[in-house]
């Protein structure tokens, strides 16, 4: 067996194969639902209903998608330059940390000044967290996959330490959680009465900004060149290491915005379960979106929908919520395979 590149894939090929990937995912999920003794149609129906069946469900999905858009963008930007940032989780917590440290009264600014200040400082913190592995990669050639992964564990322990120490809420009845943000540090809701905060709006803006950066600026051009062919980029005079560092700063900053948005928009404080793995899920979002910043929004909505839908399905039918994670893992693996097969055909030799 051999793979042969296809010069110009047909439209049918490049639409049918990804569709087949999603269809196969659904089939596998149905089979697993049957293993759990449930009617697969009921399970799938409940997931869809839970994700988009009511105004409440839809708002829940949008809220859940918000941090995923940020982490998805963070991963997409980094992967575009072949900087393997698996540490969006740590960067997310860095952003949330800055938000609660400065947003619980330390900075007494009016809301219109405080929120942008917090967002920018949160981004800086996230950027610094990714800067370390990026420097190790550029300076010593240390593989960033492992270092960013290990930093996730380190940073979570660091947060845990702070929440049981200096950041511990004295009114928290012993729970490891921070004090609540002052009202000026809270992101307002977009519409009165609807439980959807401006973090979502910020996420949409971020997606557009990243798209513009990638397509319309020299930095975006450099990032794409470095990601596609480092040797040629180097030869042409693109400062590869500087581009990787800039990419890291941007990626870390975007992931940190997820933490800012969750803390300031949704939760109002910092706990150890602020993120149920949004950083890792961002990888799935970015891959499903083929690293395209605008498609990240759609992919994040899809992924969030599955999570939210699975939660409500589990309450209704009793099939474990982990079905959602299995579906996403399967979708990820099948999608990368499908995308590859749109560009190569299998030749028997």
């Amino acid at each position: 067996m051999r793979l042969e590149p296809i010069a110009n894939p047909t439209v049918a090929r490049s639409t049918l194969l990804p569709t087949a990937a999603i269809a196969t995912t659904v089939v596998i999920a149905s089979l697993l639902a049957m293993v759990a003794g449930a009617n697969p149609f009921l399970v799938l129906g409940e997931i869809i209903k839970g994700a988009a069946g009511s105004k409440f469900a839809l708002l829940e999905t949008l809220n859940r998608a918000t941090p995923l858009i940020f982490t998805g963008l963070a991963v997409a930007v980094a992967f575009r330059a072949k900087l393997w940032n698996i540490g969006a989780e740590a960067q997310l917590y860095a952003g949330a940390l800055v938000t609660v440290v400065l947003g619980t009264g330390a900075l007494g600014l009016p809301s219109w000044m405080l929120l942008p200040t917090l967002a920018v400082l949160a981004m800086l913190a996230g950027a610094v967290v990714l800067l370390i592995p990026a420097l190790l990669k550029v300076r010593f050639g240390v593989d960033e996959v492992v270092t960013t992964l290990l930093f996730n564990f380190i940073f979570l322990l660091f947060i845990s330490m702070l929440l049981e120490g200096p950041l511990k809420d004295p009114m928290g009845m012993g729970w490891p959680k921070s004090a609540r943000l002052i009202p000026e540090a809270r992101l307002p809701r977009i519409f009165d009465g609807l439980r959807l905060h401006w973090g979502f709006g910020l996420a949409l803006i971020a997606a557009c900004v990243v798209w513009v950066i990638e397509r319309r600026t020299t930095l975006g051009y450099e990032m794409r060149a470095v990601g596609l062919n480092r040797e040629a980029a180097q030869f042409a005079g693109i400062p590869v290491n500087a581009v990787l560092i800039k990419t890291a700063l941007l990626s870390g900053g975007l992931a940190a915005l997820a933490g800012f948005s969750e803390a300031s928009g949704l939760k109002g404080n910092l706990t150890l379960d602020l993120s149920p793995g949004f950083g890792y899920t961002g990888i799935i979002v970015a891959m499903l979106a083929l690293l395209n910043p605008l498609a990240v929004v759609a992919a994040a909505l899809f992924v969030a929908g599955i999570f939210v839908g699975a939660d409500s399905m589990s309450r209704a039918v009793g099939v474990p919520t982990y079905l959602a994670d299995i579906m996403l893992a399967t979708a990820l693996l099948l999608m990368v395979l499908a995308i590859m097969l749109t560009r190569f055909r299998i030749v028997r030799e």
Partner: protein
Amino acid sequence: MAKQDDARDDRPIVLRLNQITKSFGKLIANDAVSLSLRRGEVIALLGENGAGKTTLMNILFGQYTADSGSVEVFAQTMPPGNPRAALDAGVGMVHQHFTLADHMTVLENVTLGTHSLWKTSLDKVKTRAKIIRLADEFHLQVDPDAIVGTLTVGERQRVEILKALYRDARILILDEPTAVLTPQETDDLFQTLREAVDLGLSIIFISHKLHEVMAISDRVLILRHGKLVAQERTRDVDKHQLAALMVGSEVTAPKVAPATPGPALMSLARVSTPDQGNAPGLKDLTLDLRAGQITGLAGVSGNGQAALADLIGGLIQPDTGTLTLKDTPHPNWTPREAVHSGVGRIPEDRHKTGTIAEFDLTENAILETYRDAPFSRRGWMNWGRAEAFTREVIDTYDVRCPGPGTRIRLLSGGNMQKLILGRVLESGPQIILANQPVRGLDIGAVNYVHSRLLDARDKGAAVLLISEDLDEIMALSDVIHVISEGRLSPEFPRGTMTPAELGVWMAGHGFDAEQAHAS
């Protein structure tokens, strides 16, 4: 004529290819190719890049399956698509790109694949004894316990030949074996091959170097566009006839008017660069590139050409010595500074370093200048201007493509090189570094690239032409330097040296006398 000779030859036929046809999509790589090889015979397979030589050998080795036709080794038909069959039947191949694992020893490399995978031992003692015996018999001196990565290119080739002999190969196929050798090493190789033939082995020698084909082969087969176009006894033909057969028309060396050299535009003064693994760095090298002159750099590949190209291109900095452009020293020389100082660079490998395969033509055309107006201002790209520029290059340099939005990987090598040529020449560079500018191109594209380089010279540019092809160097260059082990020979004006005389320098002789003379 050749057929009658064949009939009189009573040596047994050991290998026969019958009507081999293979196509990749629309491209017919092999078109009903037949050949036969006799015991103790050396045949040369001659053809340009892309003529179908490699495909034919891959079919023989079962790496590809032919669309039609058959392979017979010692009168036994090979099953198609089985890579082991030819090896087991006694055919050994020395690939152009060595198939050796650098971190492993000679012994391990030779042993690889000779035992059943499920055997529990490697029999190192027996293996070592056999390697030493074969090395003696065929004059292939090499230490069985040396790590392959530490060996010279010539020694590695010996390991490849040993690998084949160790498997009791009776038929040896060598793909472009001399491309990486000095003339002396080539002589040693030919000595080994002659001994092998005396011991009854048969050899297929794949090459495009005519004088070597004349020196070693009994019979020459010429492939062109996948077809076997001629088959002659070597003693019945001369080099010019072969060249004509190979390219399909009488080769005409480009007519080059005498140069009118001006002042030195770039000067390297006593520069040295560190060695890069097996590739030597530059050793105290001094070179002037003059306006209106093509300076040719001859040499066996891997003798410092890469270091010199990287240095001029801004990819590496010299340890010692200075790089001066028109009397201005440039201590922090980078690719970007090179481009801005009017150095146009045609890279050696257009796929790996010259272009980004997944970028379209526009994105590739501005790869070196994207940060300058009008392509971008204050970090914002102006794609409209970039595309207009690309259209201009496409028109001026006759790049055949659907449009500037085409991904460059879909272009042929020649069109890819034309785009690079446009990228480099359109800014009117004063100094042009042309590193293997025509490697792998068909004859039409070769002529085009050469004439463009000559045009640039006539407009006053200083051109450095680096090539492993001595004929190309001698045809185009106004002055020639030879590089060997990172050292540079004196300047030889056009017509003052014969290929043989240059060959002496390429082999590394003469440098010591030169140094003694200088000091």
